[in-house]
């Protein structure tokens, strides 16, 4: 077990399963529970499991105001993104070979796009503005005769900023281009109404919304109809779009998590917005702190900040009692700052010094207070250690220094 003294502020990475969800999942595993295969049509074990799967499908559909028949179960948002992007591209390739996405999409969209490029498709990667937002006008400009699909995320996972789905969707509709949205970060955070939103495909994840890992869904619109080529074949489950025995305990978990999200979204939002305000107020008192993203157009559960003159990974190591994530991928083999922050035009050193704090349903006021006090202290100490801070205090403009790069 993780030491309980570690404060968890990485909800945008994953959330714990809500205990109410976990207990519901337990009913679908053991001999005394409903463990049947939902595809078994010949006995009650199968029927019961199928009932549970369909009820869960309704809960997922209900949260986003879709028809349950438009929900396809997948192993997670990554598979849903793959299925949407590759599925549409391959099905409609006789219509065109051009896809539009952005430079700050999740890898679950970018990597399938790279794969499609290898298969002969052409991909346009739109540049976000300095706040991480794609302007509808950019989409309009990028659409051409051969465009078949636009894939953009709703809420950016590193920044929390929101794209204007309504305006972008109106443009894609007008041009007869399909519009896919990765909404992994959205469920339970903002209202989504797919009965009016002009979006054709939307990816969901359970584990960002207090459900289990390993389950997600893809919304595939029926009217106007969208068709996709399956990635996984073997039995024709999910109307041929995704074969494989369904996992009722996972599905029920996602259903229950989304049912609760619908009921508690307002309450969660109010509490988290309060934490966000307090955190922002206090953290901004530290000198040379920069917000990455757009405070006027973002969700309160994600707050990405750069602490100038302090390197992100050392800051994370200093914040050892707090679980947060760094925009700087110095923790990986690449030694590159976040591609998302880079795409915003942030200087590399600011991209190297960014931290993402994300709050959630189980965050307590005391977590926020304690984090702020530790953060203040660690930033101070690391600056005392930082030659860049010393130069800054001496009045040296770091942009004019010639560095001995190695």
């Amino acid at each position, binding site marked *: 077990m993780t030491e309980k003294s570690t404060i968890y502020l990485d909800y945008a990475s994953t959330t714990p399963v809500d205990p109410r969800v976990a207990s519901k999942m337990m009913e679908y595993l053991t001999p005394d529970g409903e463990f049947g295969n939902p595809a078994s049509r010949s006995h009650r074990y199968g029927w019961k499991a199928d009932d549970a799967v369909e009820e869960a499908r309704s809960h997922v559909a209900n949260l986003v105001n879709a028809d349950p028949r438009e929900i396809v179960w997948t192993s997670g948002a990554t598979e849903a993104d793959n299925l949407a992007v590759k599925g549409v591209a391959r099905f409609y390739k006789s219509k065109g070979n051009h896809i539009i996405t952005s430079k700050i999409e999740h890898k679950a969209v970018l990597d399938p796009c790279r794969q499609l490029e290898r298969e002969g498709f052409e991909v346009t990667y739109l540049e976000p503005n300095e706040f991480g937002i794609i302007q509808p006008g950019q989409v309009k400009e990028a659409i051409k005769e051969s465009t078949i699909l636009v894939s953009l995320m709703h809420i950016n996972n590193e920044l929390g900023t929101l794209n204007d789905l309504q305006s972008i969707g109106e443009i894609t509709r007008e041009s007869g281009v399909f519009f896919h949205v990765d909404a992994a970060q959205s469920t339970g955070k903002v209202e989504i109404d797919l009965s009016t939103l002009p979006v054709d495909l939307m990816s969901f994840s359970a584990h960002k919304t207090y459900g289990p890992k390993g389950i997600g869904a893809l919304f595939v619109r029926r009217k106007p109809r969208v068709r996709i080529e399956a990635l996984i074949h073997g039995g024709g489950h999910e109307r041929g779009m995704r074969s494989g025995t369904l996992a009722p305990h996972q599905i029920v978990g996602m259903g229950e998590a989304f049912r609760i999200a619908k009921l508690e979204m307002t309450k969660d939002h109010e509490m988290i917005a309060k934490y966000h305000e307090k955190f922002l107020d206090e953290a901004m008192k530290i000198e040379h702190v920069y917000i990455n993203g757009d405070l006027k157009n973002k969700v309160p559960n994600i707050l990405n900040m750069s602490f100038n003159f302090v390197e992100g990974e050392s800051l994370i190591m200093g914040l050892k009692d707090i679980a947060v994530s760094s925009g700087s991928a*110095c923790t990986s083999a690449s030694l590159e700052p976040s591609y998302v922050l880079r795409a915003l035009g942030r200087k590399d050193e600011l991209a190297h010094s960014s931290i993402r704090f994300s709050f959630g349903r189980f965050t307590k006021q005391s977590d926020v207070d304690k984090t702020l006090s530790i953060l203040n202290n660690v930033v101070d100490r690391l600056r005392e*250690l930082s030659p860049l801070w010393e130069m800054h205090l001496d009045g040296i403009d770091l942009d004019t220094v010639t560095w001995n790069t190695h």
Partner: protein
Amino acid sequence: MAYSKKVVDKFENTLNDPKAFNVGRFDPKEENVGTGMVGAPACGDVMKLQIKCEPSGNTHVIKDVKFKTYGCGSAIASSSELVDMLIGKTLEEAKAIKNKEIVDALELPPIKIHCSVLAEDSIKQAIEDYESKQ
């Protein structure tokens, strides 16, 4: 990622008691001070190392060291480790320090070896600066 306990301890000890771990600065203009600064903010690490030396026989001995490092945990730990190795050494002995010694002392993972290279470069540069003043 899996840092060795040695890196974590060195980093934390340095952070918690900077003075005891030679964090600080000398006046770079002083004749008996040599300064080396390597790395770049855009690469995510900058090390500044200063040595204060005294003549001793036909060579010079490092009497005191100060450093400041901007960088990941292992960059800070590498500088701090290097400082421990320097005090009391002659310039010749200090020049002979190889990054491998820091890698071994801290059990640095392969992707962090550049931190030790940077530390080796910083002492070379500091000695060069010192010698140019003599």
